[in-house]
């Protein structure tokens, strides 16, 4: 039996998710918003791996799922950064408040 309860892992993931959510909603720099989203994805991965070990039905599936999530997150970071560079070429800014071309 483990000495660390399963709820401790879930609480850590919850704290990291909340930090990422707050950062993504309040920060004005697009790079920081992107990296906050990565932090939220990481918190979700902790949950997946935790349930793969301590869940009702422990199996390797949770870890495989976490690997898929990491692959998709890496692709998302690359595309997000490419969009950021393209926007920067057009508008000379990384401030997220000024990225409103789709508004009008």
């Amino acid at each position, binding site marked *: *039996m*483990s*000495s*660390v309860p*399963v*709820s*401790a*892992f*879930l*609480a*850590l993931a*919850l*704290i*990291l998710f*909340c*930090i*990422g*959510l*707050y*950062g993504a*909603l*309040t920060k004005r*720099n697009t*790079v*920081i918003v*992107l*990296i906050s989203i*990565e*932090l939220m994805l*990481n918190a979700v*991965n*902790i949950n997946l*791996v935790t349930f*793969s*070990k*301590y869940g009702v039905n*422990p*199996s*390797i599936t949770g870890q*495989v799922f*976490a*690997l*898929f999530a*990491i*692959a998709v*997150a890496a*692709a998302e*970071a*690359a*595309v997000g*950064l*490419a969009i*950021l*560079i*393209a926007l*920067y*070429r057009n508008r000379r800014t*990384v*401030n997220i*408040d000024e990225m409103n071309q789709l508004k009008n």
Partner: protein
Amino acid sequence: MTLTGEFFAFMSLALVAVIGGVLLLNLTKVIHMVVALVFTFVSIAGIYVLLSAEFVAVVQVMIYSGAITIIMLFGIMLTRHHGEEAEPKGGGLRKLLLFLGVLGFGAAVYLGIYDLNFEAVPNTLHENNTEQIGISLYSQYIIPFELTSVILLVALVGAIVLARKDDEKEGDKE
């Protein structure tokens, strides 16, 4: 709850992870924020080791602490910053409301998980972890695995096209 090495390892890793996250929110320079988050990513890799997911831990160090951090640093260095996060206009009330909203969300989820306890089922995840993942990937999850390669290819091509488009336009003007 007994005080064992596993418990201490978990507490210290969790502490470093949360401190990295808090520094992300509070530092002023953008580069420092990204470097602070590296601590969080490495600590999460340690948490994966505690959860007997060694392969995922190594992947975490390579992809997050390595690739994604470097790509974000490139993104910062290729764009011009004033070095510091610009102060948002009229942000006080908005920030407070957002903080309360996120706090409420956290409290609601915590109510659901704080007394969660499953029966400990003996498992063999720690034995030949990488081999188990490989067998599972190539037998049960072969179609999602191949689809992931398509996603990576699309992301690669899309990123190149997006980042190069304006170069050609500027070249036409000249």
